[in-house]
């Protein structure tokens, strides 16, 4: 039973991050291939403040989310001028840089050893560390993130973003500062990644450079695209499918040396097949014209 709650919690935590990434990739059409880095930055900020300053994990989550949004704003401000494939590369490069710093700044992050013994979330006298309780917390956080993304999508702000995705120059002629819109949504996406990241830190109570890697950034993009670019339910579908699918492989009983590679093979083949057959994803709609 706890195993089931653990899976559901993982799904929710990933979904929080993909909901944010969907606003960036799906709605605004900005490929971010370094989104896991924001989750990593946030989880380290939350863990370090909780360990060294002794603040409550709730404050840690707030600090982590704030640090991730700040990082998102900085990264967005400097890199969003780039064409989409260069932007993908720049965000990927920043992800690599973050991973490298987490691994090598040993005096701060303890390097590959990671930071352990993180406190768990509490509510008054009750601990929220048990799988069902933490599931409730992460489900609530996911619900809040989802409603937030719904509001963003329905707002005039969201409409302008979708229009920028379709034709940026046309929107510029209407006098809109498109860069500001893009940086804002990038910041929002990073903040949600930060929320998911710091929650993950207090759920697992341990973080290391391997908690959020550059390959996770790619997996997150795959989740968003599989679910459906720009559709609101898509990122949830993608996250749930891609978190749960490997668990089915677990029951097939592949030898330990083979299972991770079989999983990778499936991810890779899925990605190629999706690009060939349905690049807009399962729930995504076909765009009105070729987006180039």
């Amino acid at each position, binding site marked *: 039973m706890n195993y089931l709650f653990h899976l559901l919690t993982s799904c929710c935590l990933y979904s929080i991050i993909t909901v944010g990434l969907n606003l960036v990739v799906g709605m605004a059409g900005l*490929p971010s291939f370094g989104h896991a880095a924001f989750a990593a930055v946030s989880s380290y900020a939350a863990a370090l403040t909780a360990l060294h300053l002794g603040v409550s994990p709730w404050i840690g989550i707030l600090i982590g989310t704030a640090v991730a949004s700040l990082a998102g704003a900085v990264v967005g401000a400097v890199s969003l001028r780039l064409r989409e*494939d260069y932007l993908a590369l720049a965000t990927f490069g920043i992800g690599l840089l973050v991973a490298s710093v987490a691994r090598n700044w040993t005096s701060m992050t303890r390097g590959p050893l990671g930071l352990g013994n993180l406190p768990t979330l509490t509510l008054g006298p009750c601990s929220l560390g048990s799988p069902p309780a933490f599931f409730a917390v992460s489900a609530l956080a996911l619900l809040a993130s989802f409603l937030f993304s719904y509001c963003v999508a329905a707002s005039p702000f969201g409409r302008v973003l979708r229009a920028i995705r379709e034709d940026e120059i046309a929107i510029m002629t209407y006098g809109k500062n*498109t860069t500001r819109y893009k940086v804002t949504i990038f910041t929002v996406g990073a903040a949600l990644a930060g929320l998911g990241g710091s929650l993950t830190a207090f759920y697992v109570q341990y973080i290391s450079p391997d908690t959020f890697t550059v390959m996770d950034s790619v997996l997150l993009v795959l989740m968003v695209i599989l679910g459906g670019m720009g559709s609101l339910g898509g990122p949830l579908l993608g996250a749930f499918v891609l978190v749960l699918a490997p668990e089915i492989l677990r029951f097939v009983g592949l030898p330990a040396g083979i299972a991770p590679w079989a999983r990778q093979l499936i991810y890779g083949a899925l990605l190629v097949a999706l*690009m060939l057959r349905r690049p807009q994803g399962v729930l995504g709609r076909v765009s009105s014209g070729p987006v180039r």
Partner: protein
Amino acid sequence: MTRTAVLGQLLLNGVVAGGIYSLVAVGFALIYRAVRFFNFAHGAVVALGAFVGYAVLHYTNGGVVLSAFAAGCAGSLAGVAIDRVAFRPLRRRGSPALVYLLASFGSFIVLQSVLALAFGDRPLLVQAASPSRGFHVGIGVITATQVFVVAAAACATALVHVLLGRTRLGLALRATADDTIGARAVGIDPERMIAVAFAIGSFIAGMGGMLIALETRLEPTMGMPLMLKAITASVIGGAGSTSGAILGGMLIGVAENLGVAWVSAGWKDAIAFGLLVIFLLLRPSGILATRDNVRTASGGS
């Protein structure tokens, strides 16, 4: 060792690393010129070459040259096959850049996991190469294998230059890269030129993988770090420029190795990727700028 001697040795190590990166980057740049997207699958082709070369070296008595050639051929086949299966249908449809990028990433993951399933994921050593005797060249020690790798990188680049600059095929390749419609108008088949670019670029990658395996070791996952360095080299030098790829490769090879004089070796990657990010932000078209416009409408330039 004195400070100068250490720096000399680090410089030499940097040149060897730069040679390795350049070898991967040259083929990458050749393919980028033809298709205008970052082909991540190139990294897995390097790893494939390493494993095929390893297998040929161990199961036949062909020696290093034959196995490097076999590795190149295997790379070439894989490169063309990936293009046919994953990219050509996308070109027919006129897909946005992101779709190509993801398809190439998917192809990379598929090929890498196939290699891991076929050969196991433990690192292997090429017996023939180790131990290789080192000799002094003024500023430090270099091994015969390292000389071989750098020489091969230089040869590959020279050949690509002659091919692009002095042959009709090269002319057709350049024409397709610069102006696809114009090239088609004078009777060049762009699809054929793209296949040629993949064949040559992936041949160099496969052969390079074999040579890199001589110098280091083989792992199915060896492709990704090399790929990232090759992309970095390519962006720093100027995407799509083969001489830029060499320049960029040497620059990051030397920079990350000289950096070891001041910070610990763990920071090598951070130095390389830091350079990548700095270049992307300040001079995204690279040192030898091409006419490629890499910014969005609102980004100027």
